[in-house]
């Protein structure tokens, strides 16, 4: 990709890495509010309200976790040897076929890494989901917020249970990623 706007797009996608989640959450809340133009448009097109709702949580998480997905994919794509892409063109195949049958299968590792890390990062998110979701029980309350609320109520037993699950899950996810990478480098 030689587009001049590439650094700009990269900077925008990487923003959630450095931005406090509350800032992103706040802007999303403002942007997606039912009386905002974007909120109105989404309501009209899809019939959903994104603020304080589960679909809103999903949208906010996608935006927040974007860099964790995009960056490994970009690295995987850039690591694909140029000549196998050209060999596919010379075999008479277009971009889409080359992407599906040559590029993606050859960056399976990066794809899997991206999926696992993004998943792990998303389940641990706090600030954005609290602001956009509002922590409504049975609807938008997620584990990380529940822990915070149990600690506030001094219910340490419940906080311990939730936290232990989160620790175990995060450890397992990272273990899978590192074990897979170690295997690859053997």
């Amino acid at each position, binding site marked *: 990709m030689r587009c001049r706007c590439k650094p700009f797009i990269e900077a925008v996608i990487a923003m959630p890495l450095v931005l406090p989640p509350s800032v992103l959450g706040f802007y999303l809340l403002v942007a997606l509010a039912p009386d905002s133009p974007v909120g109105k448009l989404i309501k009209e097109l899809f019939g959903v309200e994104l603020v304080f709702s589960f679909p809103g949580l999903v949208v906010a998480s996608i935006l927040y976790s974007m860099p964790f997905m995009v960056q490994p994919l970009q690295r995987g794509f850039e690591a694909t*040897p140029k*000549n*196998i892409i*050209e*060999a*596919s*063109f*010379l*075999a*008479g*195949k*277009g971009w889409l076929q080359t992407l599906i*049958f*040559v590029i993606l*299968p*050859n960056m399976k590792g990066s794809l899997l890494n991206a999926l696992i890390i993004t998943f792990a990062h998303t389940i641990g998110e706090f600030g954005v989901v609290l602001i956009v979701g509002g922590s409504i029980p049975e609807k938008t309350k997620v584990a990380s917020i529940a822990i915070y609320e149990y600690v506030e109520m001094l219910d340490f037993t419940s906080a311990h249970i939730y936290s232990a699950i989160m620790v175990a899950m995060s450890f397992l996810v990272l273990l899978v990623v590192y074990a897979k990478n170690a295997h690859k480098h053997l």
Partner: protein
Amino acid sequence: MQKMRINIYKELRHFSLEVALRIEEGEFIAIRGRSGSGKTTLLRVIAGLEEARGVIEIGNRRWLEDRKALPPQKREVGFVFQEYALFPNMSVLQNLLYVKKDLGFALHLLKLVDLLEHKNSFPHQLSGGQQQRAALARAYMRRPKVMLLDEPLSSLDPATRGYLQTKIKELHQAFGTITLMVSHDVAEIYRLSSRVVEIEQGKVVQEYGAKEIGKRHQLHKAEVVEIDEKSIVVAFMGDIFRLPRKGSHKVGDIVEVEIKELQLV
């Protein structure tokens, strides 16, 4: 069977590539020149992998007309890269079938390059020579009008190289495809091609029959193994020779030597 006409112009970093060639039906042309002289770029322009201006015409079909270029997908070229470029996620047979779903032809080609028993192997399970044979068979799958070989044998050992030369020759005889091969190897050029085109700084400087290459080619590559004040010692063709020192060298350098100035040590 068709003739080919190439007349192209492309600005490169330090010089421009300006090549005009007429190629007869089924001709096998060797392209020689120092590294960086534009040989690979010429093949890539013919394949449509790089832009250029001018004309590339095969039969009555124009692949390039001024700046209007057909994409590589529509050019019916076969291209064999130096580093094989097989699809790592596909078996040898799948590599061929990806180009064209013609099982009979794929098996026929694999038989021609002696790879039938490895048809289900993946590239990483094959030796360099086997991978290059698979790449060669794959390049013929589209029944190309022009075959482009970019130093296809340079990363193989001499014995494998000889065997691959035989395969390239057999395939060329079987299909009669116009072939352009970038090569530095005098033996390879002598064995395979009918005409040699020498390129320097993007321009054709000489053209001659391949059988004349022995007369034209006076310089040979040798490796410096020892240096003293007046002479250098080189390893060449399995022997050690001494010759007068002309410039500054260091051990491990590859120098060009003339046979007549070599003295056996």
